[in-house]
C-alpha cells in the first residue's frame, strides 16, 4: 500500500515536471523569433544609427550620410491621421454592436462587414483608397495614406471593443440603471469606462499592425525624399523608405534600411508603452 502511494506520487511529480517543461519550451518557441529579429536588426542596423539618421533627410545615392527624419515624421503624421479616423469609428462601431444593436440585422451586417474588412489584403485597401480618394483629388497625399491606415484599423478596434464591452458584468449595468441613469449615459460612463483597458489594448494592436504597413501607402502616401508636413502632398513613411532603400543597389542604403527597421520596431514599442503608461496612471488601488 505504502509503495503504491509512493509510486503514484512519483508519477505525479514526473507528469508535473513534463507539463512545466512543455510550457517553458512553448514560451521559448514563441519568444525566440521576436528576440532573433530584434538581435539581427541591432546587429545589422545599430552601426548606422547616428544622430544624423534622426535629423537629416535622405541624400542622393553615392553621398555618405543622410537620414530618415522625414520618414519618421511622416509615419507619425500618417498614424496620427489613421488613428483619428480608425479609433473613433472602431470604438463607435463596437459600442453599437455590443450595446445598442444587439441582435438586430444591421448589427449582424456590421459585424460581418468588419470581419471581411479584417481579411482584405492591405494592397487591395491601398488600391481602393487610391480609387476613392487619390483619383478624385488628382494627387497622392498624406491624407489618403492616413485614410487607408485608418480604415485598416477599424475592424480590429471594432471587434475588440465589442468583445470587451460584452465582458462587463451584467450586475454593473444593472447598478447604473437602478440609480435612474439613462441607458445611453450608463453605456458611455459606466460600461465603456469599465471596459476601457481592453478597448485601449485593441486600439494599440490595430495601431502596431498598421504602423508597419507598406502596401496601402504605395498608392496613397507615395513616399517623399524631402520634408513635407502638408496633408495634401505626398509624404515619406518609414516602411516605404525601408522598402525603397532595401530594393536599391547601394550598400549604404541597405544599411539605412536595416537601421530604419530597427527604429520602426522601437518606435512602435515606445508608442504602445507610452499609451499604456499614460492610461494606467489614473487607475486606482484595487481597481479590477
Amino acid at each position, binding site marked *: 500500500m505504502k509503495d503504491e502511494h509512493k509510486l503514484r506520487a512519483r508519477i505525479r511529480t514526473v507528469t508535473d515536471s513534463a507539463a512545466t517543461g512543455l510550457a517553458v519550451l512553448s514560451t521559448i518557441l514563441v519568444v525566440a523569433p521576436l528576440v532573433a529579429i530584434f538581435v539581427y536588426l541591432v546587429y545589422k542596423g545599430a552601426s548606422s544609427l547616428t544622430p544624423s539618421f534622426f535629423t537629416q533627410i535622405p541624400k542622393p545615392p553615392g553621398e555618405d550620410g543622410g537620414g530618415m527624419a522625414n520618414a519618421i515624421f511622416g509615419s507619425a503624421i500618417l498614424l496620427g491621421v489613421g488613428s483619428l479616423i480608425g479609433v473613433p469609428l472602431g470604438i463607435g462601431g463596437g459600442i453599437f454592436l455590443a450595446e445598442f444593436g444587439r441582435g438586430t440585422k444591421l448589427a449582424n451586417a456590421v459585424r460581418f462587414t468588419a470581419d471581411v474588412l479584417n481579411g482584405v489584403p492591405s494592397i487591395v485597401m491601398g488600391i481602393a483608397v487610391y480609387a476613392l480618394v487619390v483619383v478624385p483629388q488628382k494627387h497622392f497625399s498624406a491624407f489618403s495614406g492616413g485614410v487607408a491606415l485608418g480604415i485598416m484599423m477599424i475592424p480590429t478596434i471594432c471587434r475588440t471593443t465589442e468583445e470587451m464591452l460584452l465582458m462587463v458584468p451584467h450586475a454593473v449595468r*444593472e*447598478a447604473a*440603471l437602478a*440609480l*435612474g441613469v439613462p441607458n445611453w449615459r450608463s453605456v458611455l460612463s459606466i460600461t465603456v*469606462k469599465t471596459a476601457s483597458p481592453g478597448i485601449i489594448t485593441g486600439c494599440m494592436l490595430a495601431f502596431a499592425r498598421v504602423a508597419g504597413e507598406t502596401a496601402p501607402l504605395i498608392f496613397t502616401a507615395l513616399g517623399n525624399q524631402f520634408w513635407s508636413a502638408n496633408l495634401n502632398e505626398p509624404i515619406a513613411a518609414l516602411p516605404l523608405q525601408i522598402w525603397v532603400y532595401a530594393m536599391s543597389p547601394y550598400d549604404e542604403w541597405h544599411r539605412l534600411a536595416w537601421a530604419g527597421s530597427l527604429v520602426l520596431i522601437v518606435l512602435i514599442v515606445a508608442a504602445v508603452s507610452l499609451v499604456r503608461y499614460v492610461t494606467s496612471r489614473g487607475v486606482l488601488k484595487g481597481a479590477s
Partner: protein
Amino acid sequence: MGVGIEVTNLNAWYGTNHSLQDINLNMPGNHATALIGPSGCGKSTFVRCLNRMHETNPIARVTGTVRIGDLDIYKDIKPVEIRRRVGMVFQRPNPFPTMSIYDNVAAGLKLNGYTNRHVLDEIVERSLKNSALWDEVKDDLKKKSGASLSGGQQQRLCIARALAVDPEVLLMDEPASALDPVSTSKIEDLIFQLKSQYTIVIVTHNMQQAARVAEKTGFFLNGRMVEFDSTHKIFTNPSDKRTEDYITGRFG
C-alpha cells in the same frame, strides 16, 4: 421620508412564463417589509417591478398598478425617474469597479448631471455615514477603488450609493446572502436605522433575518402571494397551512 407602496393586481411575465400572478398588497411607509419564499417563487421579480427594473429584460412584461406615494409608477412617471425615487441594493455587491469609493457613492448624482463639488462632498459623507461605512473608508475616499473593499464593505458602499440619490423607498434583494455573519449583522442594524427615513422592502431567504428587521412579512409561493401579515403573526400563527409548512422547514 418613506412613502407607502400599494400594489394592485400585479402580473409579470418572462416570455411565456407567468412569474407573478395577481399580487395585491399594501406596504406601509417608514417600515421594513420582508418577502420570503422558496427560490424561484417570484420575490425578486416582484421587487424588480417596484422600480421598473423588470422591464429592462427585453422579454419581460408587466400589468397591474403600483402606487408609490401618490404616483402610479407605470402611468405617471418615466422609468429613469422612478428609479431615482426607489433605490435598489442587489444580492451580490456590485460597485463600479473602475471608480473610487467617492465616485461610486456620487455616481447616481454625477451621472444625472450634478456637479457642485461642495454639495457632492456633503452628500457622499452623509450617505457613507448612513450606511455605517464612513469611519472605515474616510481616509481612502478618492484613493481606493470600490472593488478593493471587502464584500461586506462593498455591500454597504452599494447601500450608500443607493441612498445618495435620496430615494423614498429602498429595495433590497437578499442584501446579505453573500456576506459573512458579522457583515450580515451590520447590514441588519443598518436596515433598522434606515427605517426611520425610508420605506424598506427586503427579500430574504433567512427567516430569522425577516423576523429581526421587518414589521410586515409576505410569503410568496409559485408566483403568488400566499399570505401577508405582521411579521409576528406570520412566524407564530400563520393563517395558511403552506406558510406554516415553509417556516417550520417542511419544504422549500
